[in-house]
């Protein structure tokens, strides 16, 4: 069976924690050797055929922050937010579920 490459130093690790068929917490981590270079952690809900991001933590621009979107997927605001462990992010999401956009989770 063909594979994308032999195991090298660089790897994209995707993890999906499916709370229900309409809610998923998703992690994408790009690792270069032992270092995690980029990450995106998102909480998405399903609306019809589309998956809409409600909350997202990432460091793609070199700054750890949180983006918040409304239930139609429109961007609402960005806040400073130091990286959480993905499992901690899952716990936060499971506590607040769809109310998460109304709660200030930056102090948690």
């Amino acid at each position, binding site marked *: *069976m*063909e*594979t*994308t*490459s032999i*195991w*090298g130093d*660089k*790897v*994209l*690790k*995707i*993890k*999906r*924690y*499916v*709370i*229900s*068929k309409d809610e*998923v917490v998703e992690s*994408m981590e*790009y690792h270069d050797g032992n270092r995690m270079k*980029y990450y*995106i952690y*998102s909480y998405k809900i*399903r609306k019809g055929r589309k998956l809409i*991001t409600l909350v*997202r933590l*990432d460091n*793609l*621009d070199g700054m750890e922050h949180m*983006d918040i*979107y409304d239930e139609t997927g429109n*961007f609402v605001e*960005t806040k400073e937010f130091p990286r959480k462990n993905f499992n901690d992010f899952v716990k936060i999401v499971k506590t607040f579920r769809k109310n998460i956009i109304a709660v200030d989770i930056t102090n948690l």
Partner: protein
Amino acid sequence: MLFHITKNYRKSDMEIILRAIRRKHGRIEKVKKLLQVKKCAQPEIGEAFLYYLASDDNIVEEVIIEDRKVLNALTAKRFELIEFLNKNGPMPIKELAERVGRDYKNVYDDISALNRYFILNSIRYGRESVPVGVIESVEIKV
């Protein structure tokens, strides 16, 4: 009860993912530019960037499902489809239905049910929907 699924992606899977990203967002240079100006407004741009970045590297995926209703989505016929795709590589649902000798609508419904729980990921490309990825293991933890 937790369902734990592990997957990897072949070159042929990655080609389909990247082809869809190129069609939707353009080549990597354009995605990098969009990332600077529209990163927050379009969250899928960041995901496209990571797929581009990893196009020559390994991609591994874990899916953890805590909704026990997923049991309803796991039928013998659907596992047959998973095994067929694992063995034969990604293909549009229409071709898959022809090759397994089943009705298109039933195969489409089966793939949709597996997509709903992220057991399979289907990539939309124009009118086609192509399930991608190799499912290596499905475990149930009680």
